[in-house]
């Protein structure tokens, strides 16, 4: 087939269709006037269940924290600090997550395709950055049950050593995951598993598409 034939074929085919196309004006108007409602619907479809579950979890943590602070005793110091940190980390992660979903939903599509798709993809991937922030709570899960009443003065040296190793390993693990869960590492097997667990396959797809956009920009 000659080069120009693609254009001709396309033109002939769609010119005929174009003549037969008619706009349903009533439906168009209805569609447009319902846009505000639609925008809310589109937002609502984003992982609503996950967000609701996270809010319930935060309410639960907040209530426990509030109760511990209201009935303060020095024995609850570890508990208050640990649950407080876990609570704050989760609040920040959820806030950033929702903020990004709203940004993605409200993005203006007017702009070059490479620019807008790149922006959208980066926004999707940045959700990953917030989910990786969650790993920072790991060490606090190893300290919330400690009490000033018995730790460290009434604990045996064996237990102190165990606690130290436990908290230190969780701190190192959290730090390592935080530093290494990046787009550059996304193709590695362990990172894929972790990302799929935390951000879903959408993020993996977004990363892959981002690489496609980068390659598309190259002229060779």
């Amino acid at each position, binding site marked *: *087939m000659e*080069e120009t034939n*693609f*254009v001709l*074929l*396309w*033109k*002939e*085919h*769609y010119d*005929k*269709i*174009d003549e*037969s*196309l*008619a*706009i*349903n*004006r009533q*439906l*168009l*108007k*209805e*569609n*447009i006037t*319902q*846009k505000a*409602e*639609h925008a809310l*619907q*589109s937002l609502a*479809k984003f992982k609503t269940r996950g967000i609701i579950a996270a809010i319930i979890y935060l309410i639960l943590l907040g209530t426990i924290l509030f109760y511990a602070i209201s009935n303060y005793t020095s024995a609850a110091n570890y508990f208050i600090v640990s649950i407080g940190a876990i609570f704050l980390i989760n609040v920040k992660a959820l806030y950033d997550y929702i903020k990004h979903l709203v940004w993605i939903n409200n993005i*203006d*599509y*007017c*702009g*070059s*395709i*490479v*620019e*807008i*798709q790149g922006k*959208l993809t980066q926004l999707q991937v940045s959700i990953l950055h917030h989910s990786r922030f969650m790993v920072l709570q790991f060490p606090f899960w190893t300290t919330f049950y400690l009490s000033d009443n018995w730790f460290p003065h009434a604990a045996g040296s064996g237990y102190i050593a165990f606690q130290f190793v436990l908290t230190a390993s969780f701190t190192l693990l959290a730090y390592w995951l935080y530093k290494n869960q990046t787009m550059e590492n996304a193709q590695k097997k362990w990172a894929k598993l972790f990302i799929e667990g935390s951000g879903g396959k*959408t993020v993996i*797809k977004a990363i892959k*598409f981002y690489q*496609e*956009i980068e390659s*598309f*920009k*190259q*002229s*060779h």
Partner: protein
Amino acid sequence: MTLHNQYDVFLSIIETHKGIIYKIAHSFCRDPDDQKDLAQEIILKLWKSFETYNQQSKHSTWFYQIALNVAISYYRKEKSRSNLNVPLSENILNIADFDHNTQAEQKAFFLTQFLLELKELDRALMILYLEERSHKEISGIMGISETNVATKIGRIKVILKQKFSKTEI
């Protein structure tokens, strides 16, 4: 501009470019329901963007940018589609009965199918080429250099030719 006037201007733009919406929806979705859904989504985003559209770029450039960006994003979303307010049994763009049985129509059908097999960005580029947009305009819409546009179009045409050579039409 009052909302009523704004709507009238918007309607005339849609009227002029309705074919583009149809073509893009058909080039990005195989499923008829998805095609209708995508057409609605494109119109919705066009209207949303129209409120802030500053007329600095050509109507067609603005139109293609929105429509193709929405189509690519729509295509890439997971299968769970939003339940739009407009029932999918109804169409904003209606088409009269149309004969698809001629040889030219079969070729056009294959062309659409082959376009669907391309990567999203290549497909967007090829649609603009088939729409006879200049390399300069394609470069502006896509956000890549004119040289890059020419190189990529050349490569995609070779791929399409190879695919057509296997169809024996």
